[in-house]
């Protein structure tokens, strides 16, 4: 346990975290069916010509950068819910918000609605969150985090089922694309996606930065938070909305990629050795980006000639972690 984080240890943690992300991005840009050396990339970057340039501009650059952006927003989103509910299982992927967002996007496509994907995803995510809150509501009683999580898992299954139903009724080509996207996919991304995820993500990060102090108070419990000047209910709803919207931004460019949101926070926190919400959120952004970029490069190079959806990879990485968490909760007598 590196619970005793001294200044130097924490700095080292941040350096490690940053290096991992840079390494992931470099690997993602160089590795694939055609290997590109870093030198060629650099030449491409400088001159704007040659295979390096093509890789950066068209072939891998957009997908890699979309992976960075999507991973960051998902990681931050997951950490918001993990802090609010004080439970590592609390994340928009586990709790059905991302399935809800995905379902709304598929519905929009299926019914030919001309609404931009991030807005569809946001509506889906918020509806799913409202359903989770509504269905676990008991008059006069405060819902336990675990109740919310379990209800969320149920909502997630329901949303996925609706998505599958809608996909089956689509024409074959469209259905195949939708199926792929629903698994979480980063293939064929363009700079528009990069701009979208970074633009909306940056906007939400600013909104979140203004809420971080309230979050640090909510962590101490509602009564102390109120005593320290937080408007508890308002702060909590604000953070939930920000968290759902961040997840929706990720879903809009990458589909409902599973487990990134759940894994990023704990991983970032452990590597950076930090505890304060502001640091945890920052570490989660970097860790989320790293996980997603790694998953993306593995998913397209693991089986030559076959491009797996990135969600397949994050699923393979995330499922054992989820089982380990559940096992720990059972050990602690929480489940």
């Amino acid at each position, binding site marked *: 346990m590196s*619970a*005793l984080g*001294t200044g130097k240890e924490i700095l080292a943690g941040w350096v490690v975290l940053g290096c991992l992300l840079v390494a992931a991005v470099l690997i993602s840009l160089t590795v694939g069916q055609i290997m590109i050396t870093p030198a060629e990339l650099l030449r491409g970057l400088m001159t704007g010509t040659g295979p390096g340039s093509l890789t950066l501009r068209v072939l891998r650059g957009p997908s890699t950068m979309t992976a960075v952006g999507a991973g960051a927003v998902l990681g931050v989103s997951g950490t918001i819910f993990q*802090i609010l509910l*004080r439970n590592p299982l609390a994340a928009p992927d586990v709790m059905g918000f991302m399935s809800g967002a995905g379902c709304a996007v598929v519905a929009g496509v299926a019914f030919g609605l001309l609404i931009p994907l991030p807005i569809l995803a946001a509506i889906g995510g918020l509806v799913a969150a409202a359903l989770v809150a509504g269905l676990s509501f008991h008059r006069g009683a405060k819902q336990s985090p675990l109740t919310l999580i379990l209800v969320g898992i149920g909502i997630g299954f329901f949303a996925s089922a609706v998505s599958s139903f809608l996909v089956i009724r689509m024409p074959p080509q469209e259905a195949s694309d939708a199926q792929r996207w629903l698994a979480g996919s980063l293939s064929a991304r363009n700079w528009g996606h990069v701009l979208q995820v970074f633009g909306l993500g940056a906007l939400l990060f600013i909104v979140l930065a*203004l809420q971080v*102090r309230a979050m*640090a*108070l909510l*962590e*101490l*419990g509602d*009564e*102390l938070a*109120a*005593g*320290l*000047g*937080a*408007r508890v209910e308002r702060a909590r709803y604000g953070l939930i909305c920000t968290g759902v919207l961040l997840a929706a931004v990720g879903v809009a460019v990458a589909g409902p990629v599973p487990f990134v949101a759940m894994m990023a926070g704990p991983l970032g926190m452990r590597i950076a050795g930090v*505890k*304060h919400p502001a640091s945890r959120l920052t570490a989660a952004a970097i860790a989320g980006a790293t996980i997603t970029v790694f998953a993306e490069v593995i998913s397209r190079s693991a089986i030559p000639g076959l491009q797996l959806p990135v969600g397949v990879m994050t699923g393979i990485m995330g499922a054992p972690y989820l089982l380990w968490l559940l096992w720990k909760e059972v050990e602690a007598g929480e489940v």
Partner: protein
Amino acid sequence: MTETGLTTSSLTLGYRERVVIRELSIAVPDRRVTSILGPNGCGKSTFLKALARLIAPASGQVRLSGDDIAKIDTRALARRLSILPQSPKAPEGITVSDLVRRGRTPWRGLLAPWSEEDARICQQALEQVGLGELAERPIDELSGGQRQRAWIALVLAQNTPYLLLDEPTTWLDLAHQLEVLSLLQKRNRDHGTTVVTVLHDLNLAVRFSDHLVLFGGHGLVAEGAPEEVITSENLQAAFSLKALVMPDPLTGRPMIVPH
């Protein structure tokens, strides 16, 4: 006449079926240590929470310098009055200094950086509770007494003229109870902070308080100086306790010896 201090007027707390406090009008003396006493379930914690606006009264008001606290801006109230709830739970792994720094939140502007003054007040709070050396230790690794002092440092860093604490000595052994109460008393004497605590132990409450508020199963039994409140009749009325009250050989204040 302008009112001063923390007062209640016709304060009723609880719900229709279960009113715990009815039509209570009292004044907490300024710059003194007041303890709220009474049997379990008499509403003493509820009363303290109402004083800090953590629960809304069914009717009546709590007033701070004449202002209805329900109408004071949340942050403005947090600069005037702080409350430490019973048995707070720290986020996993955070250090004492991280905890205490959060006590400065109501004083900081939305984007204001951490100031020299914030740092000084936190350092002072840590030293007042005797945790200056342990500031970088995670809360989880502290002993029960140290942990409680860390929480007190948090509300001291909030630096308010009114400090409310709900059973700050629960789960502590006698030596640590004395330690916590004497540091609150010292804060009162040195800074003129008005301290209001809910306490379980009557003899300790008498020892450390200037003013007592005694509740029974049916509301207020007595309030005033310890000598006036701690009498055999009042203890009988509040706790159904038969006890002898005699002067404490050390302080001369009333001491309770149960039959």
